[in-house]
């Protein structure tokens, strides 16, 4: 995944997380928000008797599509083209940004409105457009908060989850005027007032902007239809009002048929917002009358992920964020610690695969998990996230001290006699074990006492007493 430069040079996950766990406001916001959504999801999933079947179907449809991606992509291209749209292929972020920038320039416009889109954040499109003199306006409420605050999203579904309403009020009051219609002078932190301020601010933008950029939740190969699910109606405005619509979509977003969509229209809202149905589902096929439509199909590392037999299951992801909301690590570290537009458990397996593990940050992401398995349990397409994490750990570079320690431990475990010897040595030295361990092991004793080392191991007891019988 080439693209977004914002995360370059960030420290490794443990350091980012260590700072985040001390931020009481962040901890409070995250705990409250994730637990609310988690509870809602659990109740709307529990009411479906066939959830397990839906989940299995979702997984199977995605696997089938990924195995036949080449064929379905060509089918999609043909259908979109037949419906009057233009299809562009982008191998990486730079190419996608170049294509989109060129398309916007060709319209002569210098501003675009955007529907919330992970793919465009992944490639750093707003920054690329900015360099070309084009301003991109985010129209999703949370993305607007993030954009006005000169901030980064920290959650896939709720990008401003790290902000509370008084912070949002301050951002609106301080920044809205620079981007368009200012916030009302008497703005309070009442959620309704904040939403109204955003609505008024955005409404002017929708009516005056001639180019829109979106992503898509799904693309249907047989008809060439794109599908966006959203809650606020801003997406519907962006998709229908402007004269030119450009959609940037990852190639894994395909579904073969309309029939398949039925499964995902149940899986996605229940898993993401905890709703039975999302308020707005927009579908469009090719170019609407009087509108020009461009579809940019984005690879940016996805075909490389597809080549990995274990890791490829991450491409089933439908970006619901259920795994974030149940993850105890995400809840305490927050989304920014992951240094990617994809935070949480799915980010910990997606980012290192898309970007590679050359940086210290990316190599630390597969370790940003206690392997508790809560993410796998809630995943609507049954991505075995712990399995992929462990798989990626096998490919990551390991610190030298750890390598030596692990090699030594392996050597001891290779022979029972060596293990017995090590145990006896520990038993003899047990009085001399310090309360604080040296080196990397201090991480244990910083917050935890060590257990007492027994005088005799189990195996020595067994041998001495003949299994406790003498």
């Amino acid at each position: 995944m080439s693209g977004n430069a914002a995360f370059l040079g960030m420290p490794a996950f443990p350091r980012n997380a260590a700072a985040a766990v001390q931020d009481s406001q962040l901890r409070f916001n995250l705990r409250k928000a994730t637990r609310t959504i988690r509870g809602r999801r659990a109740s709307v999933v529990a009411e479906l008797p066939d959830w397990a079947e839906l989940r299995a179907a979702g997984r199977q449809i995605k696997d089938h599509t990924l195995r036949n991606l080449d064929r379905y992509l060509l089918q999609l291209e043909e259908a979109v083209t037949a419906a009057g749209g233009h299809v562009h292929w982008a191998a990486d972020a730079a190419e996608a940004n170049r294509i989109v920038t060129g398309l916007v320039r060709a319209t002569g416009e210098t501003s675009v409105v955007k529907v919330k889109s992970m793919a465009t954040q992944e490639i750093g499109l707003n920054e690329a457009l900015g360099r070309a003199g084009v301003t991109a306006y985010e129209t999703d409420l949370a993305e607007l908060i993030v954009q006005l605050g000169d901030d980064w999203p920290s959650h896939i579904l709720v990008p401003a989850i790290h902000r509370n309403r008084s912070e949002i009020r301050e951002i609106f009051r301080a920044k809205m005027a620079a981007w368009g219609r200012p916030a009302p002078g008497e703005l309070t932190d009442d959620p309704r007032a904040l939403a109204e301020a955003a609505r008024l601010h955005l409404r002017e933008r929708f009516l005056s902007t001639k180019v829109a950029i979106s992503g898509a939740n799904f693309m249907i190969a047989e008809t060439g239809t794109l599908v966006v699910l959203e809650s606020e109606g801003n997406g519907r405005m962006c998709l229908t009002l402007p004269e030119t619509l450009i959609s940037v979509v990852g190639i894994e977003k395909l579904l073969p048929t309309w029939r398949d969509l039925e499964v995902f229209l149940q899986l996605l809202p229940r898993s993401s917002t905890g709703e039975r149905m999302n308020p707005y589902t927009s579908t469009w096929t090719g170019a609407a009358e009087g509108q020009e439509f461009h579809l940019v199909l984005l690879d940016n590392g996805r075909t490389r992920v597809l080549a990995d037999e274990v890791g490829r299951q991450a491409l089933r992801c439908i970006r619901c964020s259920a795994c974030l909301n149940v993850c105890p690590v995400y809840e305490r570290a927050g989304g920014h610690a992951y240094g990617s537009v994809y935070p949480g458990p799915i980010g910990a397996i997606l980012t290192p695969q898309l970007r590679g593990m050359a940086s210290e940050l990316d190599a630390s992401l597969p370790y940003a998990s206690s392997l508790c398995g809560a993410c796998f349990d809630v995943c609507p397409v049954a991505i075995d996230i712990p399995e992929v994490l462990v798989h990626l750990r096998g490919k990551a570079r390991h610190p030298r001290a750890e390598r030596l320690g692990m090699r030594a431990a392996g050597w001891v475990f290779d022979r029972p006699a060596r293990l017995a010897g090590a145990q006896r040595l520990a038993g003899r030295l047990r009085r001399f074990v310090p309360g604080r361990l040296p080196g990397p092991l201090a991480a244990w004793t910083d917050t935890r006492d060590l257990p007492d080392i027994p005088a005799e191991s189990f195996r020595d007891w067994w041998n001495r007493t003949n299994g406790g019988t003498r």
Partner: protein
Amino acid sequence: MRVALFVTCVNDTLFPGTGQAVVTLLRRLGCDVDFPTAQTCCGQMHLNTGYLAEGRRLARHFADVFAGYDAVVVPSGSCAAMVREQYPKLARAASGGHGGHGGHETGGGPVPSGAAGGYEPRAGEPAPPAGESAEAGPRVYELSEFLLDVLGAEDVGAYFPHRVTYHPTCHSLRGLRLGDRPLRLLERVRGLELVPLPESEECCGFGGTFAVKNPAVSAAMCADKVRNIMDTGAEVVCATDNSCLMHIGGTLRRQRTGVRTMHLAEILAATEDPAGTAAAGAARGVAEDAATTAGEDGAVTRDDGAVTGEDGR
């Protein structure tokens, strides 16, 4: 039945009392327990940290050591899950098969590559029954599975007059799907007052090497776990994994809470008789009866016949 104890390297080295409790308990229920002394470690630490070469070696060693047994009992949900859930994936990966389709819904069957729509969504497959291994070889049971599913002993004749809360460890909860097995066993322990743990299904933050590789988040997770434990007013927090308990207990001790940790086996092995094992011989008959009289009081273990202190706290 030839039952082997895989005590695990953590218990062997740091918590021998847990291994001894399993031996006491199984003998009391009429089982012949063997401890193959060639055993070392299942390889979980290496495999889960990304040291595949060492981990594979230890997995092979485990398979060699336990090949001749009918059943292997493990007093650790985590190590049992490693052997039962992850070993088969290792084998598949080594044979060049699809490693990426594990988990509880695994079917792994080939997906038809015919025309669009030529595939049928499979019905959700239930989790494999506890104790079932995808590979040939001995069946590996976590202790509570062995007691309930194999021996049918819900009442194991234990006596433990204390207020106890139970923390379901992640690998026993979401890996092995132990469900309420440990709770059913604890509920039948005489004198024991079982108090529910709030937010019990949340990870304690141990996670093996996670505890030292991400110490800040690990400690933050444990802080919440400890707060929930303290809210129960329990004297003892019990689990099926001493590794998690080492982390929780280390935090409880550092904070001078006075709450102690105990492995499930140690509570189930406890009786009125402080020596514990003295009753082993007398209890030989329990297991044979257990299948049919599982609901009845395993009073056999009480040598003196006098139920003292049942309500004595």
